[in-house]
């Protein structure tokens, strides 16, 4: 799973720290389960398309849907840098 690009997501609020992370392939259930190493993983298996959320240290939140190749990530600049470093490993 390779991170292709990170796009800042503009919304209503000044100083919004939400970004879209785009990957080279869709997230499978097996790949999602490995995200538990980043923080507390919650996996909503019974939704029409299963949804997952990872709450990591420092208020970082990673959210996505199984079968899609992007995340929405909320967190400060430092936490984004940490996440991108973790993904590069």
């Amino acid at each position, binding site marked *: 799973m390779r991170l292709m690009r990170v796009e800042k997501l503009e*919304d*209503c609020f000044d100083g919004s720290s939400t970004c879209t992370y785009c990957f080279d392939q869709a997230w499978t259930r097996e790949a999602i389960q490995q995200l*538990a190493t980043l923080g507390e993983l919650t*996996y909503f*298996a019974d*939704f029409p*398309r299963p*949804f997952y959320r990872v709450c990591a240290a420092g208020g970082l939140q990673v*959210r996505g849907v199984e079968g899609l190749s992007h995340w*929405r990530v909320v967190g400060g600049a430092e936490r984004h840098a940490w996440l991108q470093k973790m993904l590069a490993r």
Partner: protein
Amino acid sequence: MTITANLSSRRRRLSDLAAAGPIYLNNAAEGWPKAPGVAAAVGRALEGMPVEAGRGGAIGADPIAACRQRVADLLGIPDARRVVLTCGGTHALNLAIHGVGLRSNAIVVTTVMEHNSVLRPLFHLQQSGRARVIMVGLDPGGGLDDAAFGQALRERPALVAITHASNVTGRINDVARWFEMAKESGAVTLLDAAQTAGQFAVQPLLCNADLVAFPGHKGLHGPAGTGALYVAPALDLEQILVGGTGRHSESRRHPPAMPERLEAGTPNGPGLAGLAAALAWHAGHGSTFRQGSRQAGEDLRDRLHAIPGVQSFHTAADGAAHVGVVSLQIAGWRVDELGQVLRDSFGIVCRTGLHCAPLMHAAIGSAAEGTVRLSTSGFNTDAEIAAAVDAVGRLACA
């Protein structure tokens, strides 16, 4: 890792709906699907030879005039020349607010329900010393504060600007009564009908509005980039945009007569052809459409309100009228997360955040995150409303 309970039968049902395409509940931002005939009319206008309506050498029927007449019919006004065609609601509101000639801290009364398309032009004028804005808040029931409005009128405002319906809670305001009071105090009255045109009767003569602004792409389900401003016969707005009109070209002055007075440059012919088609469709089906839209909104509002854990921001308990807009939050979920999961997991398109109405969110206590807003139209089916209620219910107990 937490894995929530499996509800396979319901999941299959919702999956079937999702497979049929997204459920569109973002009509307060832009009406979709477009009214039947709109796409074809825009296509014909783009593919056909330009008509150059109103210009020397124009050939064939004038689609701009046809659109103007359709708007006049919608508003129930006798003279289509009082209709200015614009490139949207914000354009129309700016023509109105900057055109009434506010000077030297002129008093303007408006409300916390307003969209930034009203608030920002007013604050702009306030910053330059041309206006002083008095803001009317909410009463405990979520409606506009009657007593505060009466108090504000004692300041003898030059302009009173009120939205017909909140784009956050859907609450419809009793503008006829308020505008009557405003006119008695000598004010010009401006109605922002962005959330009601096409969804609710908007008749300036009945609601005492001197100015009515609305876009074509919301409740009318016409193309984006279109809109209109009605200007009462007694009003001569100052010209904000001047330039080519195709008429009186020998003059250095922009034509003073309506509607050219407030229109300059080449009009959005294809867009206005599409708006005319939308209005033609509404002329035939508008009553049924409005009834369907109201029913869908009421159904959604009542059913969401009954779900434990869902905080819906509305005022149905006191019998107030609403357009099909419902704002909510769900305990345990961030607002922006709800928007994501509704769209990507449940296939429900909605809008989250402040909806360009920051003062309204402050007034209802949702300024920190905003709300999830679900907004219906007469095109929404019972099955779509049921699916949205089901999705919110599942999120509330997840």
